[in-house]
């Protein structure tokens, strides 16, 4: 088993946000020297259908995710977000490239990586007839936690997400989708993952539940030492929560920056409105000419 050695940094915090985005100013420092995730030239292909057509789901992706940051991954449907997350969580093998999580190679040190990660998927993956309590205890034991401690912790987390203790005993199938998603998040947090992979955690939630979950993710960032990778189709959410965002298009990272940086980029180079929507439209559009031009104009600094 591996313990993650937390790197203490003494330098002053780097202001990452403008005053307008004050609410999301980081209270902790990001450590670039010991990144949470390093991905280099990661590629994954699937062979699909009777004609054995090859689909390039993730194409030569290289990333460096800092410790303690919330790293957003945006992209159209089928752009490879979930595949990238599955690759990081050892649920898929890499065709090419390599990934390190807190310095552990995900292929050679699979167990060490599994110990420090957890993933929440779009669909709440539970034994539906079992109660939240039974599901959580199962999870706790898989991760070698003490069942009693885990139970107390689960009650605390779920209370924070607005789910009362008395609901913990009834089958999960009696809960709404939003509630199930909250239980899924609680389950992931129970194991105190150093790297939390959230694949569309708020998709399908009502506005209030969505806010609950988002506020909770912010709280996590501010109070825990988790590094979070978040995919979402909610651009406001991405802007609000993420320190940096990568946009995937056809499996490749087309751009990566802070939300402010991205907005400024589309405004300056493409004359678009400085919104996340323009960012999304610009970088996931079918025509990549704009992007090529953008790369060229990169050099002239004004």
């Amino acid at each position, binding site marked *: *088993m591996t313990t993650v050695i937390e790197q203490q940094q003494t330098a002053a915090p780097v202001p990452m946000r403008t005053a307008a985005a004050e609410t999301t100013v980081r209270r902790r420092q990001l450590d670039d020297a010991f990144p949470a995730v390093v991905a280099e030239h990661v590629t994954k292909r*699937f*062979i699909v259908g009777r004609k054995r057509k090859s689909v390039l789901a993730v194409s030569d992706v290289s990333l460096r995710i800092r410790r303690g940051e919330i790293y957003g991954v945006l992209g159209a449907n089928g752009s490879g977000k*979930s*595949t990238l997350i*599955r690759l990081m*969580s*050892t*649920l*898929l*093998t890499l065709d090419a490239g390599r990934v390190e999580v807190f310095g552990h190679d995900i292929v050679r040190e699979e*167990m060490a990586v*599994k*110990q420090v*990660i*957890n*993933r929440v*998927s*779009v*669909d709440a*993956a*539970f*034994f*539906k*007839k*079992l109660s939240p309590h*039974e599901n959580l*205890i*199962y*999870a706790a*034991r*898989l*991760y*070698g936690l003490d069942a009693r401690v885990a139970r107390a912790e689960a009650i605390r987390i779920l209370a924070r997400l607005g789910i009362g203790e008395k609901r913990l005993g009834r*089958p999960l199938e009696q809960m709404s989708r939003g509630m199930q998603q909250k239980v899924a998040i609680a389950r992931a947090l129970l194991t105190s993952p150093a790297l939390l992979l959230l*694949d*569309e955690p708020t998709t399908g939630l009502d506005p209030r539940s969505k806010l609950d979950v988002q506020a909770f993710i912010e709280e996590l960032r501010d109070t825990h030492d988790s590094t979070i990778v978040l995919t979402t189709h909610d651009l406001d959410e991405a802007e609000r929560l993420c320190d940096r965002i990568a946009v995937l298009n056809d499996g490749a990272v087309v751009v990566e920056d802070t939300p402010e940086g991205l907005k400024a980029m589309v405004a300056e180079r493409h004359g678009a409105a400085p919104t996340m929507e323009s960012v999304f439209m610009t970088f996931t559009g079918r025509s990549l000419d704009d992007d090529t031009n953008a790369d060229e104009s990169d050099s002239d600094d004004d």
Partner: protein
Amino acid sequence: MTLMARELKASYAFVERNFHLTKRYWGWEVAWLVYSVAGALAISLIGRSEGSNRLLLVLVIGAIFWNFLSLVFEFIAETVQWERWEGTLEYTLMAPVRRYAQLLGSAVYAIVYGLIHTAVVLGVLALFFQLDLSHANFATVLTFIGLGSMSFIGIGIAAAVLPLMYVERGAQMVFVIQSVLLLVSGVYYPITVLPGWMQVIAHVSPATYVIDGVRRGVIEGTPISQLVGDIWPLVLMGIILIPLGMWTFGRAERYAKRTGKLKRVG
């Protein structure tokens, strides 16, 4: 916490989880018991209609202990299928648990579950037919059940990969394996009635030795010491089949992770 203790704890996660599932699906468990009792009775009644007490016992034992072996087999063979259906497969495979710890937990639960289930069916049939089990040798029976379980766990683990590799049809293949084993293993008739080539297969089926050994233990009260000929093939098969099953499972898991067969939605 030592590594061993940690792995055992993880194994226990599967035992406890399966116990909770059995509890929550209790209606289904009752239905399954009724189904098993009815099936065993229906076959055993052939013995009564023939007026042969010996045939009756042969059939009762065949039905009950085949039921046990197939329960253990199915339980393990369906673990993957079950989790895929629930949608928890990725979650379980992502956990920091070694595959042997997971399969050990499943196997322990399968055996305990199978024993309880079988004891109930045996009890009902004993009452129904007023069976006289006074000179049965239970040590022999338990030995064969234990050894037979090992082989069936091995085959079960290997069969569990079918749903991993063939997402749609894998589960049906599990039934095919089961029915072939039933056919060749002399569960309801001596294997001597089978054509020669089938008898060859019979000799590599662990069920053949289990059913034969249990029959001798129950009907003739034969002690284990006189059944070495049935025991060594079972020991050998257990030693071969469990590691083979684990190896197959490991290969299939890697294949599934390479080709994206675990899951693709989301």
